[in-house]
């Protein structure tokens, strides 16, 4: 298999249980470099948990995660799974950007400070270098004029764009979006959608968990419908919509959204 065809991310048999509840039930997934994958499905179907498992924010009970062909996150010691060393886990997270539903900007840092933080603290770049990276990226998300204000003064859409910029400053190979527009007022969804769209056009590999069908229709190479911890259906947007004609559950879900 050539490097080009090698999947960036490969999940095998991912299983996550919360006590009695199985949130993710033996899921397999391959994501190629440059692919835009959208995961939809009702609340509690395990979409967010799967995304968080990829970033190792959620510890899984079974399965393997391969990133760039390396198995990551867990080691076998005397026949039992253990989380990998903290340094190894941090190193993986540094290569995967994550954007949260509720932004989670650092409120005590300015916009510029938020975006500089990764390069400065994690990559240990000099202050000038981190600053110039941050300034460039803020320019790209259209918030260059907001760089010296604190997040409390921003609108929800602006906050989410800063959060995207913060993740991008680490030059990630994969971006994970966990319902990036769900906490926004409807009129603010557009600016965040446009920012993600621009990123997609530049060839960023991304997995987006969303209820916003615009992502699925306009942006996705592949859409996965997830329910009760399983992938119920997947395909290109057109394929999924045609599958939906025959599948009552998917049709019902899409009708509620549209």
């Amino acid at each position: 298999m050539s490097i080009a065809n090698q999947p960036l991310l490969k999940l095998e048999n991912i299983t996550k249980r919360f006590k009695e509840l199985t949130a993710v039930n033996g899921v397999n997934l391959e994501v190629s470099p440059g692919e835009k994958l959208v995961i939809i499905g009702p609340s509690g179907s395990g979409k967010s948990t799967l995304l968080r498992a990829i970033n190792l924010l959620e510890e899984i009970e079974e399965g393997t995660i391969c990133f760039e062909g390396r198995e990551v996150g867990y080691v076998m010691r005397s026949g039992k799974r253990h989380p990998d060393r903290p340094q190894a886990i941090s190193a993986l997270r540094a290569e995967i950007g994550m954007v949260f539903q509720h932004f989670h900007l650092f409120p005590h840092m300015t916009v510029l400070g938020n975006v500089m933080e990764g390069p400065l603290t994690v990559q240990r770049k000099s202050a000038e270098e981190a600053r110039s990276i941050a300034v460039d990226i803020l320019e790209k998300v259209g918030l260059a004029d907001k760089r010296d204000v604190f997040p409390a003064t921003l609108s929800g859409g602006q906050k989410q764009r800063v959060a995207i910029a913060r993740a991008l400053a680490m030059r990630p190979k994969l971006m994970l979006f966990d319902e990036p527009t769900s906490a926004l007022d409807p009129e603010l969804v557009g600016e965040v959608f446009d920012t993600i769209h621009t990123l997609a056009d530049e060839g960023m590999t991304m997995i987006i968990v969303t209820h916003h069908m615009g992502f699925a229709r306009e942006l996705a190479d592949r859409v996965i419908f997830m329910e009760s911890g399983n992938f119920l259906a997947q395909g290109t947007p057109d394929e999924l919509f045609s599958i939906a004609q025959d599948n009552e559950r998917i049709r019902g879900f899409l009708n509620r959204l549209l």
Partner: protein
Amino acid sequence: MIYLVSRAFVALLFLCTLAGNCLGAVDYDQLFRQSSDLMALGDLDGALTLLRQVPTPAAGEEAGPFVSSRMQAARIHAAQENTDSAIADCQEVLILFPDNSEARNFVAALRDQLKPGWHTVLSDTLRFLPSLAKGALMTLMLVLCTMLVSPLGGLLIALGRISTLRPVSGTCWFIIWFFRGTPLLLQLFFIYYGLPSLGITLPPFTAAVIGLGLNYSAYLGEIIRGAIQSIDHGQMEAAKAIGMSYSQAMRRVIIPQTYKRLMPPIGNEFIALIKDTALVSTIAMVELMRSADQLFNTYFNITALALAAVIYLVLTTIFTFIFEKIEYRAGIYEHR
């Protein structure tokens, strides 16, 4: 014949006694007793008349009864609020004995009474202020040292408490349990008087800082732990998601956000600390409380205690303002 001689001897003896009386070599005890009896009956003027009978001694004569009588007269005059006569009584003594400290102090006290009230307070203040200021400086030193030590100790205890390592969190739980559960006074006694029996002898200042530091670290530990755990869990996740380690996330993201929440309760603790330093007066430290106590016991003057109260109030007021300023600065990012 023998009878006549003995009679004459007795008469001679009587005459000698009489003469002796007239010459001043009298036993004054009876006179003082009589004057005391009259005072007890409320006849102060009668007592004064008796006391005035004690003559001014000639050079080389026993002066004790004279001094006693004039000082007693001065006290009676003072009790009658006849301050001028009281001073005159003392002056009689001072003419003969300019160094008599009893008369001099009494004149000074009487002259003070003639001055207006504020003047007395002012002169007392000026008299007491130097030693109170020295005590206040020591109190301030103790407060500043404890303020430096206890937040660091508190942070360590807080991080230990939320640690997933059982022995660490257990130890920190024990420290908090012990130092919050026993009186500070007892802890100070143990460190200063108890440790020497284990071969550890500490100077009072060191013992005081260790005692106050440990006690306040325990309290601040719980406050800091609460503040850390009150920060939205998403902050830790966001920090981890950009690749930060636990300690980087704590240092750069979580702990800086606790400052604003910490200031009101920590300010509260530090105000209590300023007053708790008074307890170290029991382990041979001369700080503000001890200085005031010493002055009070020497001069029996309530002004010393009132001044100490004022100084404590000044200290707590200054620190209250400082804490409010810091709290505002720490939360400036929340202002729109």
